[in-house]
């Protein structure tokens, strides 16, 4: 079986992720036990073909081990006020240390999240506590999305976004 084509993300979904929205990262070990953590930040390229999520090492030990072992990752991006959500998956995620560029991404992300979470009724002080980190503890996880799914709550949640892959089922 040849490698499936990369999913095509709509411009507005890419824009949603680029704005900075809630990001949850998951993987799984060989015994099929899932691991998971909220990311400290996230970004995606303009064409939607390369995503980066940031994890705190001390909060994500098992998750980082699982990603390192299998390359598997599932990431959900959610806009809190609208519940609009996108799930990206990859089999080839890898980790790297962060640098000053990443620090700027994380700072922008925090500002965006303070606003978005305030929209659903929580003060910025809560968001800052939730996303508080020491940059030395943060690791970047990079991947090219191999699959993308509409994750907005409802009966269509889980439907693949890429028409080319729609026939494969999820």
């Amino acid at each position: 079986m040849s490698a499936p084509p990369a999913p095509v993300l709509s411009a507005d979904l890419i824009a949603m992720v680029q704005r900075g929205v809630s990001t949850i990262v998951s993987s799984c070990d060989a015994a099929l036990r899932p691991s998971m953590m909220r990311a400290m930040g996230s970004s995606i390229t303009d064409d939607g073909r390369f995503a980066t999520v940031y994890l705190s090492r001390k909060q994500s030990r098992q998750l980082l081990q699982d990603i390192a072992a299998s390359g598997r990752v599932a990431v959900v991006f959610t806009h809190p006020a609208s519940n609009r959500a996108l799930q990206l998956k990859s089999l080839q995620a890898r980790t790297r240390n962060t640098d000053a560029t990443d620090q700027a991404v994380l700072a922008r992300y925090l500002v965006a999240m303070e606003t978005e979470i305030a929209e659903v009724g929580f003060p910025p002080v809560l968001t800052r506590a939730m996303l508080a980190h020491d940059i030395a503890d943060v690791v970047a996880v990079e991947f090219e999305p191999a699959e993308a799914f509409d994750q907005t709550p409802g009966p269509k949640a889980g439907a693949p976004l890429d028409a080319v892959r729609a026939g494969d089922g999820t």
Partner: protein
Amino acid sequence: MNKPTLGEIRPCLEGLIPAVIATAAADGTPNVAYISQVCFVDEDHVALSFQFFNKTRANILANPHASLLVLHPQTAQFFRLHIRYLRTETQGPLFESMKAQLAGIASHTGMANVFMLRGSDVYAVQEIEALEGSPLPAPPPRCGMLNTVRRCSERLSRCTSLDEVLNATLATLTDFMGVQHAMLLMLDPVNQRLYTVASCGYATSGVGSEIAVGHGVIGVAARERTPVRIQHMTTAYLYSSAIRSSLQANTPDLALDVDIPYPGLREPHSQLAVPIVSAARVLGVVFVESPHDMQFGFEDEDMLVAIAGHLGAAIDLMQSASEPQETVAAEPSAPPALGSALQVRHYRANDSIFIGDDYLIKGVAGAIFWKLVRNYTEQGRTAFSNRELRLDPDLGLPDVTDNLEARLLLLQRRLKEHGPLVRIEKTGRGRFQLMVQRPLELQEAS
């Protein structure tokens, strides 16, 4: 690492901040999904709302391991729960209380039209991790709850009548729990309806209004014997309108409006109904509500369940306390009734009673009143005993659990609301007196 218990992280399970679940397919593909509702079942179990046949569903059926991430809504500390899927419940107390709660969450998050509870997925909690971070200071623990339960217990243990028991309970709710709108309802086990016997905080008392078992938060709490707690306005379930319409469902074949309006808030934002259970029987429901969101947390539920337990025991005691065996001998001197006659009409079909044009009461309480006024007009009697009512086959009181005290109290309160001309007053344990200020003209209608 610090390992908290599930009880310690209950604030994270109130639905203020959505939880996230990670699952894995049989081939190891992970999946992440938001969960509307995580319900504390007991120290070792949580239940998650199952709403859609989605990837999470497929995964847990194939591989029961899951991971749940929750956030403390005040400190922003993360907790990660390692859980294992056990079973799905599609009926019963857990399912029904989650269904009611979900309706509130759904309307709060603007997802009312897509949220339906298919089942309650029960998971064993295998481990809870408190994650390192920079949490905010925890708010001081709420104090005074045990003291509230103590005050209620003290007040209830001083009571010598059902009337006092109900008043003491409502007073505790308003004095110590900050409750402004409350109702106490008793179950009619024969008709499977709950009738309001006391309330506070409403424009009209609603005493005598009825709700069918199974209808609305009150009816579901009684049917499922479980507390039902809603934290947000519930347009999805239309609980309050369900109650209103259920009042009309049992209208008798009379072209008369014999419904006492349900007194509840038009636009409740928080509601909590707790069954009153004693000796394994449901006696009624304690119901509190508020026009504001998130007024009743899990601690309020704990408190109200404890109070309802005391209340149930007290009600049972008042109903079953020994009564004098002899019939009432001496007639207390009653002032003669003077003035123009009051017309009292009785409709045999449902034992409804009208005084003049005003509807008074129906059902067993109506039949009791009819017996009293007939005795009064035919024999001039004003003194009566509970015992003779129990022995009267015409009243059709069930052998056990007749709730006679509650029905007499209901009648007494309805009469009091109607006016001063006809009243009943307790004159001792198991005894009461009919007090009439005008001559009565009885009319049997069909």
